[in-house]
Each structure stands twice: as C-alpha cells, then as structure tokens.
C-alpha cells in the first residue's frame, strides 16, 4: 500500500529517520568518548600484550636472520642428498660474518637444539674457516669434520628456515617434531609438562570442589541470618580479602610446617607421634589448603548474592506442600542457587588454574602448577617464547572451559550479584 512505502516526515518536513539520527548523533559521540579511555586502556594493556605474546611464541627469526644467504641458496635444494656447492659457499659466507661479529655461539646453541652434536662441529668450523681458500667450499668444509658429509646436519639447518614455528607449543605438551618432520613424544623420563598440566587441572578442580562444599553453607547462613549476625559473618568472609595474599600464604606456612602450629596441635592431642609429624606443606596438601582458603570468598560472594534473592517463603511453601526439609531443599532451594554455583565455580576454577604465588610458596616440588613453570621460563631460562606459548595455551584452556560452560549451563545463567 502507498501509505506503507511513503516516508514519514517530521513536522518540519525532514524524513523522520534522518531527524532521529541527527538527534541521537550527539549522544552517540558523547557515549563513545566516555568509553574511549577504557577502550584505549584495554587495547594497550590487554590486546597488545596478548598479540605480542602470540608473535613471540611462534617467532623463529633468529636463525633465519643469521643465515640469510644460506637459506636463499637452499631454496632449490630438495634435501635428499648433500646440497650443491652454492649452499656450502653461502653457508661459509654467512658463518664467517657470524664468527667475526662473535655471534656464532647463538647459532651453535640453536642448531644443537635441532641436531645433537652440531655445536662441536660448528665450533671446529669456526676455528678452521680462517684458513679457507677461495673456491670449492664444499670440499674444504667437508674436510673440517666428517659430519658435514652427513645430509642430516644440512636438513637440520633447513628445518629452521621458516621464520615461525609451533615447536614451542609442541614442547608445552612434551612433543617435538623429529628429524623426519614427524610429531612425536619426548622420551618418557622427560615428560614434565604433561604432568604439570594434569596436576594444574586436578588442583583447580579439587580447590573448586572444596570451595563449593565450604562456601555453600556459609553463603546460606549469610543470606538467612538476621542482619546483626550476618554483617559480622560477612566481615569474617571479607577479612582475608583485605589481607595481602603474601601474608595469608605466609601464615599458612607458619601453620602447616612440620614444626608448625597444626602439627604441634596434632602431637599434643596424641593424634600423631612427635617423631612422625605429617608433611602438610611443600606438597599438594599445602597447595590445596592454602588455595581453598584464599579463593573461598570468590565462591561465597556469588552464592550469597543469589541466595539473598531467594525468598524464604519458597522453602516454607515446599514444606507446607508436604515436602520434608531435605526434599524441599533439593527440589526447591538447590535448583534456584545453580546460577550462583555456576558463577562461583567458574570464577574459582579460572583463578585457580592460573594461580602462581601460593603454589610457588607452599607447593614444593609436587605442588607447583603450570604457572610456576611459566614463571620459571621467564625468570630463569629466559625462554620467553616458550613461556608465551604456555601462557597462551593456558588462556586457550580457560576460554575452552568458558565455552563448555556456556554450552552446558549458559552464560546468561551466571549471576555475580
């Protein structure tokens, strides 16, 4: 009909849509300017570092940059037999510069990662190359060490040709790509990362479970007690929040150590013999105890905020309709707290999976988590690309958990307050 297609005009004759846009333009600009600082802050402190982490984790330009001529010459080489003379020449020229600049050591280390025994071969070449004559470099190099006649070593160089690599990610799950380019597991006695991943998930899971079991009654009390008691209880819950994390962890160390207060108490009550005090610290037990206590408020608060909204008359209604208190609880009260349980568990699990300070201090060897390994590579081995790769794997894992949670429960059901 014509009246449907006709444009609606304002009293001044401007099309309504245009007029509306004009009217809202100012507000939109204002709104954007208000969020702009936050947006900028997020980009600078969150997006850029994550992007940088990613590029660092796959970055493999070092060897590529050190041997530019070699890789150019290697482009035509199929890798089946020993490379032709041009490759040898290019390698000699590249390496000469490196030796002159005293940066050959880095190349030696990097290529040794790729093929064991490469370091000594290269060191020998560094000494001998000074006396090289012009021409026929293939012969001269092969004379320096018989391993240069082995095509494996040349393949090892070629494998480092791409300027990016996923080897750090493979290393994160105790795998590597071998000389044939196949992805295989490292030998059994060197599989440390996989244990750490499993332990991290296990600790996070149990900490979440313990937190849930302890927080549920607390939150229920908080939500149902009269104001004057619940305020006091709330302060008790929040007090750890206001105390430094380090102080809390340190106080657990005082409590849990072998000559500590808890052990003294056990001995005093005769529960354990004085010469047989249980080890409660520097192992998983310590990590569990300390992390559960530290993360407890993160479970209590979402649960409390949900329970606060559940009318007490619902439980009464359940009972008046003939349900025993237990049935009324599981059929009426518990299902209504699920949004809070979801929020609390997700929060605690995600915090626990990346926890660092507490496991580092009370975890010992068997209680450290993947985050401690990341920190170790950042501070001690300075293998930042490996640390970045593991950090990103952790981040991906957290996102995956969030995704699964969304599929199972629905993020809309989360209630934080």
């Amino acid at each position, binding site marked *: 009909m014509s009246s449907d297609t006709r444009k609606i005009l304002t009293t001044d004759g401007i099309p309504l849509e245009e007029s509306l846009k004009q009217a809202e333009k100012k507000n939109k600009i204002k709104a954007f300017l208000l969020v702009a600082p936050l947006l900028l802050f997020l980009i600078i402190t969150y997006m850029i570092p994550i992007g940088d982490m990613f590029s660092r984790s796959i970055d493999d330009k070092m060897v590529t940059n050190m041997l530019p001529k070699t890789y150019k010459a290697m482009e035509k080489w199929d890798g089946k037999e020993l490379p032709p003379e041009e490759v040898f020449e290019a390698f000699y020229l590249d390496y000469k510069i490196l030796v002159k600049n005293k940066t050959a050591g880095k190349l030696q280390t990097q290529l040794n990662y790729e093929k064991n025994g490469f370091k000594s071969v290269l060191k020998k070449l560094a000494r001998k190359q000074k006396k090289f004559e012009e021409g026929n470099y293939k012969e001269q190099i092969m004379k320096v060490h018989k391993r240069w006649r082995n095509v494996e070593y040349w393949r090892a160089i070629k494998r480092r040709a791409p300027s990016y690599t996923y080897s750090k990610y493979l290393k994160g799950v105790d795998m590597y790509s071998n000389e044939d380019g196949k992805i295989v597991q490292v030998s059994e006695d060197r599989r440390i990362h996989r244990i750490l991943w499993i332990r991290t998930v296990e600790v996070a899971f149990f900490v979440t479970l313990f937190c849930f079991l302890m927080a549920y009654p607390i939150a229920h009390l908080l939500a149902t007690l009269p104001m004057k008691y619940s305020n006091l209880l709330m302060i008790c819950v929040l007090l750890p929040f206001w105390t430094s994390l380090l102080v809390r962890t340190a106080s657990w160390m005082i409590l849990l150590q072998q000559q500590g207060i808890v052990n003294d108490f056990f001995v005093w009550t005769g529960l354990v013999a004085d010469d047989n005090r249980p080890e409660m610290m520097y192992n998983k037990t310590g990590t569990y105890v300390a992390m559960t206590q530290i993360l407890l408020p993160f479970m209590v608060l979402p649960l409390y905020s949900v329970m606060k909204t559940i*009318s007490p*008359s*619902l439980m*009464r*209604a*359940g*009972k*008046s*309709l*003939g*349900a*025993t*208190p237990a*049935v*009324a609880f599981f*059929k*009426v009260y518990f*299902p*209504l707290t699920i949004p809070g349980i979801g929020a609390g568990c997700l929060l605690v699990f995600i915090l626990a999976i990346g926890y660092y300070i507490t496991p580092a201090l009370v975890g010992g060897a068997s209680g450290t988590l993947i985050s401690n390994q990341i920190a170790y590579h950042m501070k001690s081995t300075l293998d930042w690309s490996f640390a970045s790769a593991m950090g990103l794997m952790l981040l991906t894992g957290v996102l995956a958990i969030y995704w699964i949670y969304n599929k199972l429960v629905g993020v809309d059901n989360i209630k934080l307050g």
Partner: protein
Amino acid sequence: MSKKADFVKFDKVDKSYDGKVLVVKDLNLDIEEGEFVTMLGPSGSGKTTCLMMLAGFETPTNGEIFLDNNPISNIPPHKRGIGMVFQNYALFPHMTVFENLAFPLKVRKMSQEDIEKKVDKALAMVSLDGFANRMPGQLSGGQQQRVAVARALVFDPAVVLMDEPLGALDKNLRESMQYEIKHIHESIGVTVVYVTHDQGEALTMSNRIAVFNDGKVQQLSSPDKLYEEPVNSFVAEFIGENNTFGGEVSEISNGTCKVKLEKGEIIANPISVKSAGDKTTVSIRPERALINPKDKMDNNQKGKIEEVIYHGDHTRVRLNLLGNSEFILKVPNSSQNLDIKLGNEINIGWNSHDARALDPK
C-alpha cells in the same frame, strides 16, 4: 458427617519472640470445619504469627493448637497437611505451572496418572486450563495468584491458610479474586483461615472475622454483627467509618444511658458502661445519622456544615456537631437534599440504639 465446631482450636496460645513482649496473648479460637475465618487487624497485631503457628513455621510459647482434636505443636509443617497461600505467591520459579501443582502430589508419591488428573481439575477450578506448561514468570499477578490457590488446594488439605494473598494485586483484580476465592471455598467446602489487614476483603469473604489488636482477639463474629455491633471502640474504629464522642455517663437506666459531653448531652445504647460516672466513647455509623429525619428519633441536634465532598452516588458531609468537627454524614445522592451547602445549619437525628456507648479510648 456432622461438622466439628472446633476443627481448628487455639487453646490459651501465647507467643513471644524475644521473651520480653508477647506478640500473641492468651489466644482462644475455635474454627468450625468448612468455615471461612478471617484474621483481621493492623500490622503487628499478631495475626500472621497465629497463621504461622498453625502452619507450623512458628511454635507457640505456651498453650496448644489442635487440628481435628489432635495437638499439632510437635508435628513438623510438612506432616500437618495444611495448604498455604503466601503473600508473594511463593510459586517455584524454576518449575512450570504443572510442576508447581504436581509438587505436593509427587512428594506424596501419587501415580503419574492421578497427578495429571488432579492437576487438570485444580487448573480448571481456577480457570487456568491450558496454562500448565507456562513458567510462573510468564503469568500475570492474578494468574500467579490463582496458581498459588490451586497449588494449596490440589492435595485436598483439611485446612487452607491464606496470608494476605491479594495484597500485591490492583484494586479491580483484588475484588474479582475475592469473589473467586469465596466461590471456590463454597464449592469445595474446605476450611479456610485467611489473614488480611483489608476490612473490605474480610467483610466480603468471611463467615466469621476475628479482629486482632495488640496480640488479642478483640471480637470474633460474623461480618454484619462486627459492623453493626462492635463490642469495643477499637473494633468500631477499625471496621468501617465511625463518628465518636468522648464523654461521661450521667444517667443509666433500662437499655439507654445519657452521656454528658463537653457541649451538650446525647442518649446512647450502653454496651460497655455499667454505671453513672463511667468514661465512654460513643460510636455512631455515618449512615445511621439522618438529615431532617421524618420519623421521631430520640437524638436531635443541630450542626454546621464545614465540608462537602461529592462522591458520585453519595455525598460526604463533614459537620461540626456538639463540639466534634469531624462528624461525617453519608448522604445518598437524591434531589431531596438540596440545602446541603457549606456553612448551612442542619438538623441531624439518630436513634439512641445506634449510638453505642463503648469503652473510652
């Protein structure tokens, strides 16, 4: 089967929450089987506490409550078999209407077939057929209220308690729900104990009304008696509108008494005064005082009109009468009363029988 006169019995029940103040004092109340009894009173008068004690969510500090001659103080709420409709409906928000209604039947381990039959019947009773699969959040306030009523009745309880169930509804809906609940009560004959602070609701629905104040039942009687024959000045004041005169009895003799006011004297019906010299409050319903009465009445006074408020079907007139400037008249809207104008002096008359001399305020 004869109806038991004391199907629900409160026997000398006291209740205190803090050991200092009695919220309910020496409550004695018998409720007949199948009766609709309303507990009416201002907030804090103890009526909800009484209901909670009957439901089992509070325990009496002293005394005993009997249900069908059995003491129930030691029976937990879920074993009492008493249905309850809550103020905010208390429907389970995570269950459909069907699941809400099936809940009391499921915990009684009924067969699925019986459950479906009973739920359908209950939904039909509150005219909500076809709403079984809705969630409570998708229903309007009135519909939620009906589901709550149906849920309280679906398991055939002996007694249904209703705690201000219509408080959250708007005026029109409230009125139609009042009739609906009344009709449901009449058709199934369940005993209902209803709590409200709305006197109109109480008068409309109840067989008997217990007026609560200060933890005590002030009067327990049928709605008409309560309105026409209040036994004390609180009830007279609380139920309906009321004109009062404070004074002192000067003479008392067979069925009438003279009450001396600050200005003048009136003849009244002695209800709670015994002898001359007693202080008293005389209460007269606005509709019992007439302008220029045709029949002879034993009280005739002149009053000055101070305010006239038009109400459509009637006009409210505020007079200054015998020193009481808050004397209200309700004048039916007819062409006769044309001299009702601000400032006019008019003659007012009423029968001494309708002027009840009650306890002093």
